[in-house]
C-alpha cells in the first residue's frame, strides 16, 4: 500500500473556513439530485406522483362531476384548479416525511458533519419536491385536457398559474419540513401532517363553492391559503378579475415560506 499524501488544509488560525457562495448552490443541487433519484426509486412515491393524481382527475370528473354543479362554468374547468392545489398541498407531505426519514437513518448527521453549506439539505429537499410538483402538474394538465378541461385565458396566464402552484407547493413544503424535523420520525410526521392538510384542502374552495358552507366554516374557508391559491389559479385559467386574487395568494405563499423556512432552518441547526 502506498502512502497517500494528505491534502493541504488551509491554515485558518483562529478563524473559520468560509463556505463559498457557489457552494450554497452546488450543495443544494447535489442534495436535490439525490432526492430526485430517491423519488424515482421508491414505488410509493412514484405512485403518489403519477397514478394517484390521474385517478383524482378522473374520479372527480366522472364520479362527482355529474352531481356537483357550479354556476357559470363547466365542473371540469372549475375542478382542475382545485385538484392542482390539492395535489401540491398533499405532495408537500413528501418533504416532511423525507426529512424525517433522513433524520432517522442518520443521514442528516452525516451531512451536518461535512463541510457543506448549512442550507443545502433543506434547500435540496425543497428543490426536488418542486421539480416533482412541476412534473405532477404537467401530467394532470395532460389528463385534464383529455377529459375536457380547457384553459379560457392565454398561455401567459396559464404559465402564471403553474408558477403559482409550484411556489405554493414550496411554501407548504417548508411547513412540512418543520413538522418533519420536529418529529424526526416518518410515521409521526405523516400522522401529524395529514389531518392538517385535510383541514386546509377540504374546507376550501377546491371542490365546491364556499358559499354553500355554514357560517363559521365559511369564514375560515374564505380566509385560508388553499382557498386563496385555488381562487387565484382558477381566475388565471378561467378569466375574470385576477390581480387581487393572485396578490392574496402570493402574500400567503411568501408569508408561509418566510416564516417556516426560518423555523425549519433553526430547527435543522439544532437537530439531534
Amino acid at each position: 500500500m502506498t502512502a497517500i499524501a494528505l491534502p493541504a488544509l488551509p491554515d485558518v488560525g483562529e478563524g473559520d473556513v468560509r463556505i463559498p457562495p457557489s457552494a450554497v448552490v452546488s450543495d443544494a443541487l447535489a442534495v436535490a439530485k439525490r432526492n430526485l433519484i430517491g423519488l424515482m426509486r421508491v414505488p410509493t412515491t412514484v405512485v403518489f406522483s403519477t397514478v394517484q393524481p390521474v385517478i383524482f382527475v378522473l374520479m372527480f370528473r366522472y364520479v362527482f362531476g355529474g352531481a356537483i354543479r357550479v354556476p357559470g362554468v363547466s365542473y371540469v374547468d372549475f375542478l382542475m384548479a382545485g385538484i392542482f392545489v390539492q395535489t401540491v398541498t398533499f405532495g408537500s407531505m413528501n418533504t416532511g416525511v423525507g426529512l424525517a426519514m433522513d433524520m432517522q437513518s442518520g443521514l442528516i448527521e452525516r451531512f451536518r458533519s461535512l463541510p457543506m453549506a448549512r442550507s443545502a439539505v433543506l434547500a435540496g429537499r425543497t428543490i426536488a419536491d418542486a421539480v416533482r410538483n412541476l412534473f405532477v402538474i404537467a401530467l394532470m394538465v395532460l389528463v385534464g385536457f383529455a377529459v375536457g378541461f380547457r384553459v379560457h385565458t392565454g398561455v401567459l396566464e396559464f404559465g402564471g398559474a403553474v408558477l403559482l402552484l409550484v411556489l405554493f407547493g414550496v411554501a407548504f413544503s417548508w411547513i412540512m419540513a418543520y413538522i418533519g424535523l420536529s418529529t424526526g420520525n416518518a410515521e409521526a410526521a405523516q400522522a401529524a401532517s395529514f389531518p392538517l392538510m385535510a383541514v386546509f384542502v377540504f374546507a376550501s374552495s377546491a371542490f365546491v363553492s364556499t358559499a354553500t358552507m355554514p357560517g363559521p366554516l365559511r369564514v375560515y374557508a374564505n380566509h385560508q391559503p388553499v382557498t386563496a391559491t385555488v381562487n387565484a389559479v382558477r381566475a388565471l385559467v378561467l378569466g375574470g378579475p385576477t390581480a387581487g386574487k393572485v396578490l392574496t395568494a402570493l402574500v400567503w405563499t411568501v408569508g408561509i415560506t418566510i416564516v417556516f423556512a426560518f423555523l425549519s432552518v433553526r430547527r435543522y441547526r439544532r437537530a439531534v
Partner: protein
Amino acid sequence: MSTNYAIHVEGLVKRFGDVLALSAIDIDVPHGTVLGLLGPNGAGKTTAVRILTTLLEPDAGEARILGMDVVRQPNAVRASIGLAGQYAAVDENLTGRENLRMVGQLTRQPASTARARTDELLERFDLVHAADRPAKTYSGGMRRRLDLAAALIHRPPVLFLDEPTTGLDPKSRSDLWGLIGELVSDGTTLLLTTQYLEEADRLADHIVVIDEGRIIEEGSATDLKERLGRTLVEVKFPTTRRARIAARQLAAIGPTELSDGDTTVGVGVTDSGKALLDVVRLLESVDLAPKSMAVRQPTLDDVFLQLTGRGPSADDEQPEPATRGAA
C-alpha cells in the same frame, strides 16, 4: 494551544437534562495514533464523538481537532475529519457508487477527483460487485464498509468511528479491523469507540475507559492488563477431589479459585514463567498429576469487570443493531 495533538479535549462537559453524559473529560490523541474509547452502554462515547465532530455543542470545556476549535471553527474542523457514526448513514435509495460520489461532491472535490476516489474506495472496501445496486440491498457488513468509505472520501487526516463493528459477524468484524489497520498505517489519526475489549486491544495504541461520563482508567492495552488484570495458571485435574486437594496446596503460590465444575484450579500469579515451575514442583512433591496446564493472560474483559464491577454489556439494554432505518 496544543497543535502537538491531533485531538485535544479539556474539561468537556455535556448534560442532557438530569443526565450528566460527560463530566469533565480530558483526552489527548497524538498525531497518527489510535485512541480507543471504551465503555458500556450509556457511558457517553457517542456524546463525546458528536461533540468532537461538531454535531453537538458542549456545555463546558474545550475540544480542538488539529488545533481548531470545534465550536468556533466548525467548518474548518469538518474539512479535516471523517465520521462513521454508530448507525451507518447511507442513502438507502442510492447505489453504493452514487452514495460515495454524492459525499465526494459535498466535500467539494472536483468531479473527476471524486469519481476516481469513489472507484478507489469501492475497490479497497470490496464493494465493486455491488457498486451499482441500491444500498438498501446491502448486508450489514457492506453497509458499514460503505459508510466507512463515505467517511474517507475527502482523505480526512482525523477519523472518528463510533462502534464500527457493532452488530457484525466475526468474519465481517475481522475484515473491518484489517481495513482500519490499513488506514492507520497511512498516518490517519483515529478515535474509535467500542464496547468490545478485543477491538480496543487489537486496534488502539491508547485506551480510555469511560463509565457514566467519567474517565475511570487509561493506558495502553498492555498497561491496563498488567496493572489491573492478573495472569492465571490454570491446572486441570481428572477429578474434583484431586482438584480440591491441589487448590489447598497451591494456595502457597498465589490466590486460587476453582472453576469448570471444580475440576480446574486457577492460581493468580505475576511472573507466569517462574510460577509455572513452582506449580509443577509443588504438584510433583505431593504427587498430584494434572490432566493439563495452561497460562491464561488477562483480557480486557477482566480489566473491565474489575473497574466497573460489571461486564462490558451487563446493562439491561440489548446491544443495538448496526443500522437503524425506516425500512
